[in-house]
């Protein structure tokens, strides 16, 4: 394919499949965001009282019944789906339906809308911890004299207490694996594992795959739940969580770009978006929600293997934004809103704000940020995909959601104080993400005219 035709291979978003503490699909998310509600609530799946935080924007059992989401003949497979896989599978089903695509997963035996070999799948995923109850109950007969673990007995008998497919519940690529099987996506498929940036990188990879002609459409996004013992512990070790004791106010605890912020609150969720060539969408009469025009990724020069040290990262994050604007052939002045990571983790917020200042200068104080963390938490590998869903919906609705918690963001040079939802004229929306490990990515979405 020549460079000219590559540029002509425009990509649009034809389906949004967010999953978060507001539920499945764009409608509950958008309603919750615009009404200024928050899905942050006490963790009830286990007793969190021994952790620094006791709250998260969790998905309630009644919001996600995986058996009702998958095709009937796939229900058996739900037994080997970790929480992260369930979220991805639910998100994919939601996106496929929203895009009015027929796949093997929506109607077995009916011709699919797009030939399976032309459909790719790129999903960001995190490290999925084993279920503690399952692991511990399997190990009960394998105690050493001091009450610890006895590998000898485990090798002889204990491991047989685990289901044979145990490992497959926890491989990060199982999100994409189940999704590709359910919807019969036979094109290029990948699993990106770069923390909060994973979703944005997945969308960038979908763009690259579509532009080079290897697929006409991709299921693209990310999903994760860190609301687990290991998830909370690792985030605590990384100094990323705001302290919220039992009965504390979780919403007030996460304050993106607020000088007094102390950390973030986790969420469960993510999103899958249907990214598709303009021609494919046009030919099948699909409604384009937004155009995906630009993407770039960079690596920050300083890494935070332990704790968060992004003191020197602003230039690198800004370089990713510059790259995405260049890819989109869009000027910074044409960006009308930004969906940043906006975690409330002080050093990360400072690095993000400094990067945005490098690109937008003084205008940044008048450029609305869409900060999602006080409402849906930070959803790990799902975070930037969820952000992309919201960005597309903002463009489609020409509206900005409400913001919570933050006061005095002007001190950090940004505009993100709490306020109600409002209508807005939005030509382009920028999505930025920076993750633990130093990866950074930016996406530019354009209004469909």
């Amino acid at each position, binding site marked *: 394919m020549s460079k000219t035709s590559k540029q002509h291979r425009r990509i649009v978003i034809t389906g949004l499949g967010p999953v978060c503490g507001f539920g499945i699909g764009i409608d509950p998310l958008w309603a919750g965001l615009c009404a200024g509600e928050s899905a942050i609530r006490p963790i009830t799946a286990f007793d969190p009282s021994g952790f620094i935080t006791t709250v998260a924007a969790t998905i309630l059992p009644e919001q996600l019944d995986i058996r009702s989401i998958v095709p009937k003949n796939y229900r058996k497979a739900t037994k080997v789906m970790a929480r992260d896989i369930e979220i991805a599978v639910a998100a994919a089903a939601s996106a496929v339906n929203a895009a009015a695509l027929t796949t093997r997963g929506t109607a077995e035996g009916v011709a699919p809308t797009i030939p399976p070999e032309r459909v790719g799948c790129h999903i960001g995923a995190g490290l999925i911890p084993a279920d503690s109850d399952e*692991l511990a109950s399997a190990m009960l007969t394998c105690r050493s004299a001091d009450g610890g673990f006895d590998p000898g007995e485990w090798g002889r008998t204990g491991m047989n207490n685990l289901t044979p497919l145990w490992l497959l519940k926890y491989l990060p690529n199982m999100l994409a694996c189940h999704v590709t099987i359910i919807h019969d996506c036979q094109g290029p498929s990948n699993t990106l594992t770069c923390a909060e940036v994973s979703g944005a990188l997945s969308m960038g990879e979908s763009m690259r795959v579509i532009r080079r002609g290897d697929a006409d459409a991709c299921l693209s996004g990310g999903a994760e739940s860190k609301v687990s013992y290991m998830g909370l512990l690792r985030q605590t070790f990384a100094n990323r969580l705001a302290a919220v004791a039992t009965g504390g106010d979780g919403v007030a605890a996460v304050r993106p770009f607020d000088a007094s912020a102390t950390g973030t609150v986790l969420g469960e969720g993510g999103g899958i978006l249907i990214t598709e060539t303009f021609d494919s969408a046009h030919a099948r009469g699909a409604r384009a929600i937004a155009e995906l025009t630009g993407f770039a990724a*960079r690596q920050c020069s300083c890494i935070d293997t332990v704790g968060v040290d992004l003191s020197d990262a602003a230039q690198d994050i800004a370089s990713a934004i510059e790259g995405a604007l260049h890819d989109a052939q869009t000027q910074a002045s044409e960006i009308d809103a930004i969906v940043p990571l906006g975690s409330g983790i002080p050093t990360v917020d400072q690095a993000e704000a400094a990067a945005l200042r490098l690109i937008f200068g003084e205008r940044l104080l008048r450029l609305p940020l869409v900060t999602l963390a006080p409402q849906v938490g930070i959803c790990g590998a799902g975070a930037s995909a969820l952000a992309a869903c919201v960005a597309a919906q903002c463009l489609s609705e020409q509206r900005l959601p409400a913001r919570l918690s933050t006061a005095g963001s002007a001190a950090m040079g940004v505009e993100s104080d709490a306020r109600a939802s409002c209508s807005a004229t939005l030509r382009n929306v920028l999505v930025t993400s920076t993750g633990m490990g130093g*990866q950074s990515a930016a996406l530019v979405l354009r209004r469909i005219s």
Partner: protein
Amino acid sequence: MSARSERSPSERIVVSGMGWVTPLGHDLETVWSALMRGASGMAPITRFDARTFPTTFAAEVKDFDVNPLLKDPRVHVTAGINAQFALGAAAQAWKQAGLDVKPARNMRRVGIYLGAGEGVIDTPNYLAANLKAWDATTGKTDGAKWAELGHALMQAAREIEQEPNMPLAHIAREFGARGPAYNCLTACAASTQALGEATSILRGGEADVMIAGGAHTMIHVLGVTGFNRLTALSTSKGDPSKASCPFDLQRGGFVMGEGAGMVILETLEHARARGATPLAELIGFGSSADSYRITDIEPTGRGAAAAMLQALAQAGIDARARRSDGRPFVDYISAHGTGTKENDSIETLAVKRVFGELAKEIPMSSVKSMLGHLIAAAGAVEFITCVMAIHRGMLPPTINYTTPDPECDLDYVANTPRAAKVQTCLSNSFGFGGQNDTVCVTAFES
């Protein structure tokens, strides 16, 4: 992607450096000469006491110290074994590419694409926390107790180093790469996919140089447990060095390996501008999903064939055609060749599906017979063996091949290396979950 014949120097992607850390050594020459001897890296597991496990052996990396290869080892003091393998392989590749003396023109155009696995879990402490927090009266884990034990027993650095993007972060820090950075984790296909997508990033003009490859080890209690429960591993009770026997009728599963393979990929234009020596050219990449079952490979080899065909199409090679001298255009296939019943017969079927009657004329071997299965790192290591085969005119063997399997009826370069004129190779990697990736590499010609 542009057809090969139309590619400009900015779209031609060359290999300018390679490095690996494997169970048979930690530098190009040592490992290559071991492969040429048909050596085996397998031995009883030493990383934990596996004597009672169904599988008691693996191919471990031995006596590897990354520190002499690093600019300042203190920067990487927390690096897990996975990241150490990655750094070691990348340092070799960076040096061979001459990037320390003939630097890249812009570090923001030096990217990284790894297919690295998760770090090694802190098994004793992690399992002790789970076990001691168990509440027998409720039949569930006591969350508060778990939290207390978790904070007390586990260590921050050790936990954070388990994130799969940490090898990437360490490499970026060591070499100052600030371009597009990705880590993918598609099980056993990961690092082949990383090489392919890195090539795509270069060809699309997003970077000048990519450090690409993979690193992984799953030789730990829960890794061996997981694969034993899946009955994917060889449980041979005999000599470990005979346990990995891909394509043989007696094959009974794969043998776990560990390590890393890294290559420097760059545009020919950039390599020329800084006076680097191209070692080979990566001319094709194909990727597909089986979309079949989580446990089984699609039985007709559809997905594997699709990946090979796509790689060949991108390389401008007609699988069914012959050169003017009658030889097929592909001289060697580095098989995924895990040594499981299912993989080896379906891979054979897929190769026949792609090459038709030419399939029997194309030698295809599995270095997993010697190195074991390096999981996420396997593809990159096998890609390097292809480049070495091109340079040395030698094909690595499939060792332990004694009993032909009627379902595996190709030329597997049985037991001894073979001299051959090698210009173009395919390298296959197929992951658990149905991920198929193939890259095509050829001798560099200006």
